[in-house]
């Protein structure tokens, strides 16, 4: 499995020894290929906003419209008035669910990661192995009993059902463990102990500040993952309590001839993620790449 390599940045040209110091210069052909890759990556998102801002007639145009139009407000108001999609409610629900899940994952993962990296206790090696193993198990396949459990608890159709089962992840614990291992010096913890700090104070005053950069990345990754979750919400939620993805699904299945309304919803549901990406994109890329090195 992947090994977190701490706060080591990807090698840059001119920085010490390493592969990056003697890289080939990118050729024009390489640039061309990469520009093509970026254009293909960005186009469907750009096109979402085009359709969202056009009237439905524009879909039939040949050649297809490639520039935004002036109907965004019109389309969005049709969307907000739609009682089948409950779009605003779905948006608010998703915000609550994603914030709660991401915060909880960060809290529990930093606590457990700290314990695994810096505290001595019986069975810690075995327990860590268990956590790594859980990362490879597709637990979504326990869908049916999980649903039965939700019915039993009376949570079917409520937001608890999409929150509580996901309050902590093996990935989060493992990522925080690897980072804590590298980023928190043992001496610092020893010194705090000598000063009479309790373990929880060490966590709060020493470990958590040191883990902040990685914890922020974990928060963002988890927020996006929860925001985008589909299958479980589809199974356990009812149309009257949707997440934003369920609002989109309701739109796409019942109003698929009203493209501009569906695409207005898709565009608006993507905006929060685009904002997160624009502001924190570098950190997210850093997190993905550092987390991936050395399986």
């Amino acid at each position, binding site marked *: 499995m*992947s090994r977190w390599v701490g706060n080591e940045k990807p090698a840059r040209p001119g920085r010490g020894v390493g592969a990056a110091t003697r890289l080939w210069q990118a050729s024009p052909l390489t640039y061309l290929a990469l520009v093509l890759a970026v254009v293909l990556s960005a186009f469907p998102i750009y096109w979402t906003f085009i359709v969202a801002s056009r009237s439905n007639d524009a879909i039939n145009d040949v050649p297809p419209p490639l520039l935004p139009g002036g109907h965004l407000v019109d389309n969005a108001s049709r969307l907000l008035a739609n009682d089948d999609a409950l779009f605003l409610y779905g948006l608010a629900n998703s915000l609550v669910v994603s914030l709660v899940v991401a915060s909880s994952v960060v809290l529990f993962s930093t606590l457990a990661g700290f314990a695994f990296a810096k505290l001595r206790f019986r069975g810690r090696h075995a327990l860590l192995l268990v956590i790594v193993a859980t990362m490879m198990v597709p637990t979504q396949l326990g869908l049916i009993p999980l649903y039965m459990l939700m019915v039993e608890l009376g949570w079917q159709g409520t937001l608890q059902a999409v929150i509580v089962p996901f309050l902590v992840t093996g990935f989060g614990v493992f990522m925080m463990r690897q980072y804590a291992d590298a980023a928190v010096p043992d001496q610092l913890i020893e010194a705090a102990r000598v000063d009479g700090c309790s*373990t929880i104070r060490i966590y709060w005053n020493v470990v958590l500040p040191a883990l902040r950069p990685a914890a922020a990345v974990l928060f963002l990754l988890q927020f996006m993952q929860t925001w985008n979750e589909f299958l479980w919400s589809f199974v356990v939620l009812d149309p009257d309590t949707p997440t934003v993805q369920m609002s989109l699904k309701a739109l796409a299945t019942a109003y698929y001839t009203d493209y501009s309304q569906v695409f207005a919803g898709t565009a608006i549901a993507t905006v929060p*993620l685009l904002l997160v990406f624009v502001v924190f994109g570098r950190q997210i890329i850093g997190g993905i790449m550092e987390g*991936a*090195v050395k399986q």
Partner: protein
Amino acid sequence: MRQRLSRLDTTLSPYLYVAPFFLLFAVFGLFPLLYTAWVSLHDWNLLGGHTFVGLDNYGALFADPHFWNATGNTVGMFALSTVPQLLLALGIANALHKRMRARTAVRLGILLPNITSVAAVGIVFSLLFANNFGLANWVLGLAGVDPVNWTAEKWSSWSAIAVMVDWRWTGWNALIYLAAMQTIPADLYEAAAIEGASAWRQFWRITVPLLRPTILFTAVIATIGGMQLFAEPLLLASGRIEGGSLRQFQTLSMYIYERAFSRDFDYGYGSAMAWVLFLLILVASMVNFALVRRGSR
């Protein structure tokens, strides 16, 4: 007293800190997974009545043409999406692993699709692949190709779905490969260059072999995701769980949903299928592992 408390703190705290994961995983992860096997041995439905029927569900499953259809579709779409996806990602990573301008912008650009939701991807690409006015057919038309009815056939619907999956995941895989490439020592390439190996040869003889563990990692991730494909085909079918009029692109996850949550609420049958899917993922992951292992010898 104070010392006693402090000793209690150091012995108990670690367990307290790791407990939330294990408790939550036991209740919401492990228990449902194992209970799936138990439910699959029963005639068990929505109303709660259940009788033990042994392996009957599995027997019915293996005689069910819809199950085999869904299995074939799932494996087919998985192969059709994963092979180009990982090869393309390797190529992009290799292109990024150079001295260049705007490297961060390019990385952000190729990761952009990964932040969109599967629902959004399903919606947007369903319109791109629409019959009469889809952009895909318009582009094909420019090249003189007749319009394709994308949802009508297996090959065409699988291709459309593979494009959705690859659009969303190629950039992510490329960044993973790039990260691994940056750990390869430069002197390996220097030695190869001195012996006159071309860039192409260096890529296949040095980069790819050293990336094997990473390739395995991405292949396993792609397997777990690909075997559970759900939202994209569902939305391509405008929300119909059968995945096309002739079930051309119904995946196993969709068929599980159809049987357990929509048609006859047959939990036992759905659980048997989920368990088979689990084994399928396990086998596919082991095949990946064996392939990568064999290649490295």
